[in-house]
């Protein structure tokens, strides 16, 4: 195995090991707060678990998958060795050390502040420093993606950048810039208090900084999924990508409008003016455009494949698709979950409707359906697709893969649909226990029990996933051949510079950030008396 393949596998294995542990915690949390269990004696244990689950699932898993898959794309799409392999190992080491540094204080109960930090709660400084290390490790990846792209462009002047690489670099730039918000919050607001240098914190300003990160981070999680839609699915089912241009436009739109929209996480926060909330809401509506473009392009690509396979009729071609192929199956599940989750998202981003669902289990249901469902199921698909090329060994348990994808899909629907429902009934999120004996809440007991069953199904599915990959590591050696990404129906010969580079779009991204965030941030920084005493959670 080459050194670079080993490096990529290390990313995936660390990501999936963390995923397995965090999945176990998630299932436990659902059980312990359900009517099936008595009230937990010490709620701190519950919040400790929630912090570990969120930190691992939101920071460690997607960041490492994006990094590993990004390096894989850079090597295979550009068809040359990765520049900066040592740096990539350094980035991985930082992420690994950061993960351990963050998880140990959580396990000790010194940082039960939940992964979104929630100042003025302040936990152990090591927790935040660990998260910063993960982010710094990922910034090395951002830089390497850029270096590899521009080196290739210098050697191939005028040639279109391979689409997979273009999309990967777009995702890396989005992450590089969106992580700045949380980094500012951690470095200038939270860590000084956690280290005992200050005892008050401007919680409102800190939340504004976090919202800078909080929404676009979701699109960063989404990027490997969308890249897989465009560059893996059409090839895997024997078709063509309907439009290379449309794909590039979608990723560019994500880059520009995924960023300046985070205030929709602050709709109920008093420190941001209603005008800015409306502007952010407007741009949030726009971010549905690249998803709609993607749904159209991918459906068209799938139809091309189906008709090439002899499919006929208005919808009859659906039957001609290779449904036994895990990539096809996983993508279909992902689309269904994206559809429901996206519809819920449109409700969340509507300034007035959000008041109905704010801080209820609806929100928990929403982001589990989008992230845990639509996005993570494609991480499985990516792993299944690239594993033989990384390990040089066959991944042959197709039946197990299909079972795994089916159980993940069913489990996630069974988990999240009841959550949406009880959220509409007003069930708050982030609670360690609920009094189901109260007549007001008694009706929520049955849907909550349903969702616990869904959690158990997900646990089984997660275990199956790890079993499939582990079996792949021990399978007989094969020659997997050259890895190929999808080819467009009309591969571009020449592209306008705007669709082959990022200068214009990065400028727009930064400009929109300044316009949408500049005034609220400067205003809060300049307003005296906005600091509140910190509440130490295990940091004392």
């Amino acid at each position, binding site marked *: 195995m080459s050194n670079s393949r080993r490096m990529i596998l290390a990313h995936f294995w660390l990501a999936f090991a963390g995923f397995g542990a965090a999945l176990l915690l998630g299932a436990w949390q659902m059980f312990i707060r359900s009517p099936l269990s008595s*009230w937990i004696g010490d*709620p701190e244990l519950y919040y400790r678990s929630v912090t570990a689950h969120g930190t691992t699932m939101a920071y460690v898993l997607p960041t490492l998958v994006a990094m590993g898959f990004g390096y894989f794309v850079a090597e295979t799409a550009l068809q040359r060795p990765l520049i900066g392999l040592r740096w990539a190992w350094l980035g991985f080491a930082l992420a690994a050390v950061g993960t351990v540094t963050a998880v140990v204080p959580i396990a000790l109960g010194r940082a039960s502040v939940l992964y979104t930090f929630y100042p003025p709660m302040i936990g152990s400084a090591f927790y935040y420093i660990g998260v910063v290390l993960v982010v710094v490790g990922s910034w090395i990846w951002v830089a390497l993606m850029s270096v590899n792209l521009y080196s290739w462009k210098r050697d191939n002047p005028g040639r279109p950048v391979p689409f997979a690489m273009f999309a990967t670099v777009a995702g890396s730039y989005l992450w590089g810039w969106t992580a700045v918000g949380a980094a500012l919050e951690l470095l200038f607001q939270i860590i000084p208090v956690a280290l005992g240098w200050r005892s008050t914190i401007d919680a409102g300003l800190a939340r504004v900084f976090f919202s800078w990160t909080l929404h676009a981070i979701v699109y960063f999680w989404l990027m490997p999924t969308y890249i897989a839609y465009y560059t893996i699915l059409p090839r895997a089912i024997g078709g063509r990508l309907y439009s290379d241009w449309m794909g590039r436009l979608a990723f560019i739109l994500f880059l520009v409008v995924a960023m300046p929209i985070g205030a929709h996480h602050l709709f109920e926060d008093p420190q941001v003016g*209603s005008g800015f909330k409306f502007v952010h809401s407007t741009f949030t509506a726009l971010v549905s455009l690249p998803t709609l473009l993607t749904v159209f392009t991918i459906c068209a690509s799938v139809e091309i494949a189906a008709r090439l396979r002899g499919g006929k009729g208005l919808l009859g071609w659906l039957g001609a698709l290779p449904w036994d192929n895990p990539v096809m199956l996983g993508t279909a599940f992902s689309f269904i979950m994206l559809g429901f989750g996206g519809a819920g998202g449109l409700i969340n981003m509507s300034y007035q409707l959000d008041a109905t669902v704010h801080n209820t289990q609806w929100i928990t249901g929403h982001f589990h359906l989008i992230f845990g469902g639509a996005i993570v199921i494609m991480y499985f698909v990516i792993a299944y697709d690239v594993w033989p090329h990384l390990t040089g060994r066959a991944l042959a348990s197709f039946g197990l893969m299909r079972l795994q994808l089916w159980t993940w899909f069913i489990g996630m629907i069974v988990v999240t649909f009841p959550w949406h429902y009880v959220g509409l009934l007003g069930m708050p999120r982030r609670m360690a226990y*609920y009094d189901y004996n109260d007549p007001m809440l008694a009706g929520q007991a049955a849907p909550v029990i349903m969702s616990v069953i869904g959690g158990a199904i997900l646990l089984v599915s997660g275990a199956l996933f790890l079993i499939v990959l582990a079996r792949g590591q021990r399978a007989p050696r094969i020659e997997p051949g050259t890895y190929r990404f999808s080819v467009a129906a009309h591969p571009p010969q020449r592209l*306008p510079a705007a669709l082959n580079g990022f200068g214009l779009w990065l400028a*727009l991204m930064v400009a929109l950030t300044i316009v949408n965030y500049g005034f609220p941030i400067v205003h809060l920084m300049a307003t005296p008396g906005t600091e509140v005493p910190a509440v130490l959670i295990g940091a004392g």
Partner: protein
Amino acid sequence: MSRHVDRWVTSSVAITAAIFVAAAIIGFALLPWGQPGHRFTGLWDAICSAAGLVRASPASEPVVQPGYQMTSVVVTPQMLSGASAESIGRGATLALRCTMCHGARGMSLANTPNLAGQDPIAIYKQLADFQTGARKNAIMAPVAVGLSDSDMRDLAAYYAYLPRVAAEASGPAGAPPQIVANGAPVRSVAPCGACHGTLDSKAGAGWLSGQPVVYLRAQLDAFASGARHNDIGEQMRNVARGLTHEEIGVAAEYYAKLQ
């Protein structure tokens, strides 16, 4: 750059700017100004409001002040950390005048709070509140009135330094009752133990184990009636108002027995 690129630049910038301007006009002017019954003095006032500017209330709306003295202490977790030996020593001398009620080493049978090992921030805050009149007590007010700020810090440091010893009434407290361990979530009552010991302790919240049951009951009743009101966020008044008499009794007895 070719003309082709220029077209991408101009059109993308123009579309983005147009969307922003349209959203800004709607969000900053039309929506706030168009609200029926709005009370802005002009369009600019509406725009400033939508921008989130901190604005003084109109003169026609007088600020309602509470009819009592509020606490003036801003509690931060590290405010009294790292007390020096000198501070503790001065506190020991000052504490001589407290021994009549609070015992020679912070423990007594007088149904007054046992102060040995108490959270220093809690002691400091209560002394300051007695001094300003935010908390009223016929005995403590005259005692506290002559204390300087550093006197109060020294006293807090001294009592925090004393070892917690088992109170006379302490005994096997058993498992914490539900109101202490879980609170009453449907009534928005947080668990006592989340701030006052058993599960966790929070800055400024008194450590309740070994406190006299009479005292604990009296304070919860005083919070519930509003007679005691030096909890600046009304957190204790809200909790106490939501408790039944039975729950007050159970919690007080549990903490009184807890060592």
